[in-house]
């Protein structure tokens, strides 16, 4: 067997293994936009916190509203942009690989969302940002097995930020903006550079 044939075989094997088990139609722009939404939302929350006239309940309620809006915007933008990339790759955003990715991302993500609601119920407000970062980081690390492996670094970054946040509660919003904002923008840009 010629060495070139061997190399070609091995490449073909690797490509098929990846294409059949990983959903690779992700758009770098969705990461960048999600990061921008998070930064904007974070700045709004910071300015709300400066406002001395609002009581704690109102602050929490508004911050929650902003957080949920950022999340919904990010998810819908990501679905929109990724389905466009998928169509270009002759892939389907509801294909078995895509659904597997969504399931493995959702398990820790939904758990984290429920955990956050329970924290709100118990009024453990300092834990909100760390818990969001930790569960989201876990969700991304889990999902990385079913899409680009490099995604795990985004997950690890959020996970670490979440843990550091546990020791400096006062900077919760900053850590949140670092993880959901800055890290996502960096990741999105790196992804675009890689794809070019």
């Amino acid at each position, binding site marked *: *067997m010629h060495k070139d044939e061997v190399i070609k075989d091995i490449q073909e094997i690797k490509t098929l293994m990846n294409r059949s088990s990983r959903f690779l139609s992700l758009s770098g722009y969705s990461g960048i936009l999600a990061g921008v939404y998070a930064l904007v939302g974070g700045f709004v929350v910071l300015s709300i916190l400066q406002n001395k006239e609002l009581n704690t309940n109102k602050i929490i309620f508004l911050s929650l509203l902003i957080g949920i809006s950022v999340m919904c915007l990010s998810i819908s933008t990501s679905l929109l942009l990724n389905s466009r990339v998928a169509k270009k790759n002759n892939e389907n955003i509801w294909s*078995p690989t895509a659904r597997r990715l969504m399931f493995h991302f959702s398990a820790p993500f939904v758990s984290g969302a429920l955990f956050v609601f329970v924290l709100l119920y118990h009024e453990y407000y300092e834990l909100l940002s760390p818990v969001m970062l930790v569960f989201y980081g876990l969700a991304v690390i889990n999902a990385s097995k079913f899409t680009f492996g490099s995604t795990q670094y985004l997950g690890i970054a959020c996970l670490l930020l979440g843990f550091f946040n546990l020791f400096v509660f006062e900077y919760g919003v900053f850590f949140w903006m670092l993880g959901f904002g800055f890290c996502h923008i960096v990741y999105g840009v790196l992804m675009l550079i890689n794809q070019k």
Partner: protein
Amino acid sequence: MGLLSGLHKAFDHRIRLGIMSILMVNESVDFVEMKKLLGVTDGNLASHAKTLENDMFITVTKSFIGKKPNTRYSATLLGKKQFKQHLDALEKLMNT
């Protein structure tokens, strides 16, 4: 043990190599999905799958989803073991 001994004749064809590769990393894959991943015709896929089935490297499960027939492929333990040996042999060849 010679360099060529790990290679298996059954995998010496692009489509059979492809079928095994896909089944190494997926529990089971249906006919339509397999056809799309490999970019081959119905008849081509069926005949190569038959060869692998005869070698007992894969199982072919036919069922019905409502009224539509559905065929799913899975790798057997034997198939996975043989394919892994084939891969190891290929990598050894690449490093010479």
